[in-house]
């Protein structure tokens, strides 16, 4: 589909990977054709609370740009962390 964009956070998804991730999502947010941003967690081996904060920021920006965020391919520790934080209540997780 042309109106979705996949974002690929670093293997270690934490505050240090914020800049690269933000650069990618800002491009996607600026695009008028993009409707859905997919955060592909396939490669993520570690995630911390700062990264959860980054996802929340992304969600805020997406909502104000009238786009939605989906989280795909969750597994391992990242899956546990997002489940404990109950992020399925505010994100579409596939």
């Amino acid at each position, binding site marked *: 589909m042309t109106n979705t964009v996949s974002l690929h956070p670093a293997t270690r998804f934490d505050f240090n990977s914020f800049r690269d991730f933000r650069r990618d999502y800002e491009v996607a947010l600026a695009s008028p054709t993009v409707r859905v941003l997919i955060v592909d967690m396939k490669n993520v081996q570690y995630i911390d609370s700062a990264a959860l904060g980054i996802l929340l920021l992304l969600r805020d920006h997406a909502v104000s740009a009238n786009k939605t965020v989906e989280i795909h391919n969750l597994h391992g520790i990242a899956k546990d962390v997002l489940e*404990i*934080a109950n992020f399925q*209540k505010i994100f579409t997780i596939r």
Partner: protein
Amino acid sequence: MRPLRILAVDDDALIGIIINTFTRQLGHTCQLSASGEEALDLYAQQDFDLVLIDRMMPGMDGLETTQRVRALQEQRGWRPIIMLSGASDVDEQVLALNSGCDDFLAKPINFNILEAKINSFWRIADMQQQIARNHEELVRYANLEAEEKRISSFLMERLVRRDMLDNPNIEHYLQPAQVVSGDLLMVSTSRTDDLYVMLADATGHGLPAALSLIPLSQTFYAMTAKGFQLSSIMHELNQQHRAHSPSDRFVAAIAACYRPMDNTLEVWNGGIPKAFLLNNDGEILWRFRSANLPLGIVDHKLFDSSVEVFKLPDEPTQLFMYSDGLIEAEDVHGTAFGKDRLEQLLQQPLNSRLATLQACLSAHLGQHAAHDDVSYLQLLCKEQSNSSSFGQGTVIDKGSGNTENWNLQLRLSAQQLKRLDLEPLITHFCQTLGLEESRQGVFGLILRELLSNAMDHGLLGLTSSLKHEANGFERYFQLRNERLMALENGEIQLEINQSSDAHTNHLSISVCDSGPGFDFAKLEQAGLQNDPDRYHGRGLLLLSKICSHLEFRGNGNHVIAELHWPSEDVAGATHGT
């Protein structure tokens, strides 16, 4: 790049003039000196960026001048020195470089080479300045950070309230990852001896984490002391956090309220790993999993503040809660402590449980510091029998002077009853009016029992016998929530009166609900003492023991509870006569 300030040292005045003219044409400034001694005086007084020194001079020669300028530079910072010399052989160049100068230029001076060398050192000088500026900046940041750490340590220390954590029913451990932790443990006791605990894990560490925890801890201590419902507290904490922190900063938290009077435990968990309810033998009786989003993520419309209510068994139990730093703590090989190992360790008798956990954690970590904060807390739940010192003591104890007289009447309709957490609100109002301090605890308890009877049985039509069925307690609270949500009609009238005469102080609480009432005559016939179990759910046994007088009117939908206690004997109070 700014122009260079050049110092040229040569006893030959002509060469000095030529260098001066040439360097000024390049846009730099130049100061001349005819001898090594004079050059040292100048260098001590002014700042230069580059020094040109003639090798052969009467008196102090170029080699010695170089060494002395270098000595001055030890305090003032390195600047390049170029030596000019008539002798151009290799030995002479080596000697010059060994004496400490940075470059060598043969005489007669080739001005193209001199210009190239000046430009080369110009770039180096610029880099040097940049490095010096960066260094200064780094020192400034390091100082700032040290200051921030000091302030956040101070803040966290204040937030923790160690006096509250030192509770005989609490065991805890908190190991911050850095100097300052993002984990906060809080304990508080209400006037009615309900015990509240909370473990909060803020995003990040240091000052940002400490700052985001300030409003939360203030709200927690204030509301728990007044005996607010746990769900009201969580609702307010979520609002507080949203009001004070940006959207990517949230706080994972678990909070619990243990009510020893009814031996119930309420738990709210948003973003903290499962907490365990254990008995003395180490059997896991229940897991309180995270059912909610952490604090500060969604607004009050989406925030779910409903709590899990758990009726505890008759045996003593313990609630164990911990932050994810404990199971994520890595040993030297990068292996996490793990939730399976924790769960296994917890399943042992109370008296050895935490000591074993601590020993295993220390062995696991070794010299290796944990990556994240490690904290845990164990709350000991021991039921207080209804005829405890609480009820007795407050009736027997000495009066505290003549009380103020006041009367409060309230009529609350369904809308307020759905929305408000009444007991702390009304208690606070009565305190302001002049509720006798020594009666505040027992007052809150009576008020809560009467209000919950009026609500649950009067307006919502719940039967307390439900609580005695298997899983009845959970079912009861579920039903209560559903009916409260749907409540549209009904009201509760409340009248509270405090007065005193010469010998006795009186406090009466009258609660009248618009429900159908109940057959209190039968209750009075049976006698409270003889059949306590039958009316357990209504808390009437407790009330009848605490109150000086308990009376039902109308259809049983109107109840009046009275407390009497002696006024202070004025003569007896006069000390030492």
